[in-house]
C-alpha cells in the first residue's frame, strides 16, 4: 500500500470535488445560480414587447435572455470564497495541512476545482437560459451564429474566472463573512464609485468592464474579448498569488 510519491494533482482535485459535494452549501449556491438565471430569463420573455422592451424575435430580446446566463457569476465568486474560508471557519484547515503540508499545492488543487465547478455551473446556467429562450422563440435557432455563440460562451466563461477571483479573495482574507462581503460590496457598490473618481476610460479595466469584454459586449467602450479575458485572469492570478503567499506563511495555531 505504501506509495511514497506525492498525491497527484488529479487525485487532489477529485478529492476536493468530493469535499464540495458532501456538504449542502455548494449545492445551494448552484441552485441559486439556476434560479438567478431562469427567473430573469422568464421575466424577459414575459416582458417582451411591453412598454419598450424588445419583442420576441429581435436581437434585443435574444441578448437579454442570453445575458441572464451570466447572472450567477457573483454566486460563482462566492463559491470560490467559501471553498477556502470554510476550511478556516470549521477548523478543518489543520487536518488539511497535516495531510497536505505543501500549501501551494493545496491552493492549486482548489483553484483547478473551483475553475472546473465554475465552468460547469456556467454551462449549466447557459443551458437554463437556452431552455427558456429556445422554446419561447426569444433565442431563435436561425440567428445563432458565431458572434452569438461567442457571446453566450463568454457568459459561461465568466463563472470559472469569478470562482478563481473568489478563491483568491478567500485566501487573502480567510475570514468568511469578510470574504463574502468585500467582493460583493465591491461589485455592487464600491467599484462604480471608485472608478468614477479615476480618469475616463479606467472603468474599462474594472471588474464590470472586463466582464462585459469577456462576454463580448458589442460596445466600442469595452475592451476586446481577449484583452478583457486575459486581464480578468490576471486579476485572478494576482489575488491567488497574494493569497497563496499569505496562507503559506500563516501559522495554524
Amino acid at each position, binding site marked *: 500500500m505504501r506509495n511514497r510519491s506525492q498525491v497527484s494533482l488529479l487525485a487532489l482535485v477529485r478529492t476536493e470535488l468530493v469535499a464540495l459535494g458532501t456538504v449542502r452549501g455548494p449545492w445551494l449556491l448552484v441552485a441559486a445560480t439556476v434560479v438567478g438565471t431562469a427567473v430573469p430569463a422568464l421575466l424577459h420573455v*414575459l416582458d417582451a414587447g411591453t412598454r419598450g422592451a424588445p419583442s420576441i424575435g429581435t436581437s434585443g430580446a435574444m441578448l437579454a435572455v442570453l445575458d441572464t446566463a451570466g447572472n450567477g457569476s457573483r454566486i460563482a465568486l462566492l463559491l470560490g470564497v467559501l471553498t477556502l474560508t470554510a476550511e478556516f471557519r470549521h477548523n478543518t484547515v489543520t487536518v488539511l495541512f497535516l495531510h497536505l503540508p505543501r500549501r501551494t499545492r493545496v491552493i492549486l488543487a482548489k483553484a483547478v476545482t473551483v475553475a472546473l465547478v465554475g465552468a460547469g455551473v456556467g454551462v449549466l446556467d447557459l443551458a437554463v437560459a437556452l431552455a427558456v429562450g429556445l422554446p419561447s422563440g426569444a433565442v431563435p435557432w436561425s440567428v445563432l451564429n458565431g458572434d452569438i455563440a461567442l457571446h453566450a460562451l463568454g457568459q459561461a466563461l465568466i463563472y470559472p474566472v469569478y470562482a478563481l477571483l473568489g478563491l483568491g479573495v478567500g485566501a487573502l482574507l480567510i475570514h468568511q463573512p469578510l470574504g463574502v462581503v468585500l467582493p*460583493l460590496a465591491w461589485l455592487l457598490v464600491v467599484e462604480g464609485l471608485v472608478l468614477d*473618481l479615476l480618469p475616463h476610460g479606467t472603468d474599462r479595466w474594472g471588474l464590470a468592464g472586463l466582464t462585459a469584454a469577456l462576454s463580448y459586449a458589442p460596445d466600442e467602450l469595452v475592451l476586446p474579448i481577449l484583452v478583457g479575458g486575459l486581464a480578468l485572469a490576471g486579476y485572478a492570478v494576482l489575488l491567488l498569488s497574494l493569497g497563496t503567499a499569505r496562507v503559506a506563511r500563516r501559522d495554524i495555531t
Partner: protein
Amino acid sequence: MITPLVGAELRQLRKTPATWGLLAAALLLCLAWTAMVLAGVGGIESPPRGSMRLRDALFGASSIGCLPVLLLGVLAMTGEFHYRTATFAFLAVPVRSRVVAAKTVACLLLTPLIAVALVMVPYATGVITGAVELTLDRHLVAVCLRVVLVFACWAVVGAGIGAAVGNQTVAVVLPLLWFGVVEQMSGAYAFLQGLQAWLPGGLLVVVGGGRYPGSLPLWAAAAAFAAYLFVLFGAGLRRITRMDVT
C-alpha cells in the same frame, strides 16, 4: 432589566473590530462619494458652486452608509452564533427575547451618531473646499433627522435578518444580493411593474422621504415596512427561543 443589557451590548459592539471596520468603510465610501460630487462641480448638469442642489448632493453622500449600517445590524445579531458565545449569553440572560431586543436597541442607539457623522463629513468637506457655505439651518436638521430614521430602519432590518437567519455568512450575503441585485432587477421588468413599491428597498426609499413613479403613500409604506419587520423578527424570535444551544 433591559438597560444594563443594552449597555452590555453597546460595550460588545464597541469592542468588536468589525464595528469599527464597518464605520471606517462607511466613512471612506462617503468621502469617495463626496469627492465624486465635488469633482463634478462646474460641469454640465452638475450643481453649481454654492447652490442648494450641491448642498443636497453632498448630503446625499450619506446614503452610502445604508449598507454598512445594515451589516452592523446583521453582525450584532449573528455574532453570538458565529463565535459560539450563545451559551454564555443565554446562561446570563435565559429570556432570549431580551437578548434579541437588547441587541436591536444597541444598534438603534448607534445609528444617530453614524447618521450625523455621514451627513456632516461630506458637508464639512464641501465647506472646507469652498464648494458650499456653512449654513446651520432647519434644513440641515431635517436632513440629519431623516438620515437617522433611514439608518435606524436599515439597522433594524439587518438585526431582523440576523435573527431570522442565524448563519452569519448567509445573513450578510442575502441582503447584499437582495438589495443589490434582486430589487434592482425588479425595477427593470415591466411585468413586475408595481412590485418594487412593495419590496423592502422600495418601501425604505419612501420612508426616507423619497418618491418614485408608483411609490406608495408614506403611511402605506411605513405600514408595509413594519409588517416586514414583524415577520422578520417573528421568525427570528421563534428560531432563537426554540433553538437548542449545543
